[in-house]
């Protein structure tokens, strides 16, 4: 579903990604962990071209993102993204936040889009907030809306960029539980997270990144119980 070959990213002289080779299969949940500055978020953002790779190739569903004539808007419709800071549209109500893109891009009628939005709001447990504005919601609620908004495009892949890092501790759980439901439904997910519990429980595969490279990867069992790389051992000793 996602194939990444020799992905490099430089910001001026800063070499953030130094050659990532990865594949994410359909229905797989991959959780990327690692210290800050290791390139996790940059990797994720390259997958929908929010960052332009300096070198390397990325394929989504067999389509290359790095060839010059790519229709990135079409591909992004298949790849939902959830941000650390939610990025809800503050001037729109919750329902409009969710229906805007499906109506403009997928040509859904207002009625169809509203039905879809209601279905998604039920799913994330926030149907009662349908006519509120984002400012009236807590952080956890905002992030659940952000997930619903991304799902409204009916994507094949969901990217999560530290979705719980900006939340108060008591709100982390409600967001993780929505993500877990999504994983159980078979959604293909690439998640950058510091939630080791979530990684262990929901992740099919864990990537440990350090200094722009995936230095160790494997099942949660292997990563958390039998880490081999010294940097991973050091990292785990600090976070667990």
């Amino acid at each position, binding site marked *: 579903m996602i194939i990444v070959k020799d992905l490099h990213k430089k910001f001026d002289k800063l070499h953030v990604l130094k050659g990532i080779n990865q594949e994410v299969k359909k229905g797989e949940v991959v959780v990327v962990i690692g210290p800050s500055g290791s390139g996790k978020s940059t990797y994720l953002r390259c997958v929908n071209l929010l960052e332009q790779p300096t070198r390397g190739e990325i394929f989504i569903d067999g389509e290359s993102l790095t060839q010059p004539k790519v229709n990135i*808007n*079409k591909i992004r419709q298949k790849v939902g993204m959830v941000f650390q800071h939610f990025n809800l*549209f503050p001037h729109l109500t919750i329902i409009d936040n969710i229906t805007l893109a499906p109506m403009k891009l997928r040509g859904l009628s207002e009625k169809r889009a509203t039905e879809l939005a209601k279905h998604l709001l039920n799913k994330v447990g926030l149907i009662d907030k349908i006519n509120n504005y984002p400012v009236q919601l807590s952080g956890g609620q905002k992030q659940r809306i952000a997930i619903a908004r991304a799902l409204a495009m009916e994507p094949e892949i969901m990217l999560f960029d530290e979705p719980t890092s900006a939340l108060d501790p008591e709100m982390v759980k409600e967001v993780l539980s929505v993500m877990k439901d999504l994983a159980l439904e078979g959604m293909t997910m690439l998640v950058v997270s510091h939630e080791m519990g979530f990684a262990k429980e929901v992740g099919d595969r864990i990537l440990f990144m350090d200094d722009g490279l995936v230095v160790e990867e494997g099942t949660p069992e292997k990563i958390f119980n039998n880490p081999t790389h010294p940097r991973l051992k050091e990292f785990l000793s600090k976070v667990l």
Partner: protein
Amino acid sequence: MDFASMAKYTPLFVEGLKVTVQISFVAVLIGVVVGLVMALFRLSSIKILSWFANMYIQIIRGTPVLVQLYIIYYGTYPLFGFNIPPYIAAIITFGLNSSAYVAEIIRAGIQAVDYGQMEAGRSLGMPHGMVMRYIIIPQAIKNILPALGNEFVVLIKETSVVSIIGTADLVRQADIIKAATYSHFEPYIIIAIIYIILVIGLSSVMDRIERRLKQSDYR
């Protein structure tokens, strides 16, 4: 002081008020339209457009409006071989002058919208222009409006210099009444009051619009 003797000049004040309001209003329209185009040019990734807009804004902001007025009023004959009426020169001058300031206000308003909004829109698959139209601009308007209202207030007052080229605005009418009555004080007090009423009226309209736009900021 003799304000009673001013009463018979009411039609002149009214005429002057009309001209001042017309010049300001049309200049504002030109200012907003040209200003929006210049702001989008400045933010454009096409080098020549942003360079042009930058030059335009620098030149207009770097020269006094009175000099601009003279250049446009007296410059049309040597350049194009015909004269334009003072009234038209006044509208063009203030329209262009205002557009440079409006362009900067709009640019700043757009840039003040969190970049995450653009990324969120783009990540849903929306093209750049669509994100601008439905997500960035509506939020930018809230940043832009207060500064724009301020710009309009400044504009109304600044148009008083057009009397110099003989445009029959409020100041020009006061000059005429002064010459006719030898009253050097009363005509200017009266137009000062008219300006204040105009400005206060405009401010309250802007306040009302701002308040309506703030809807989504309330908890």
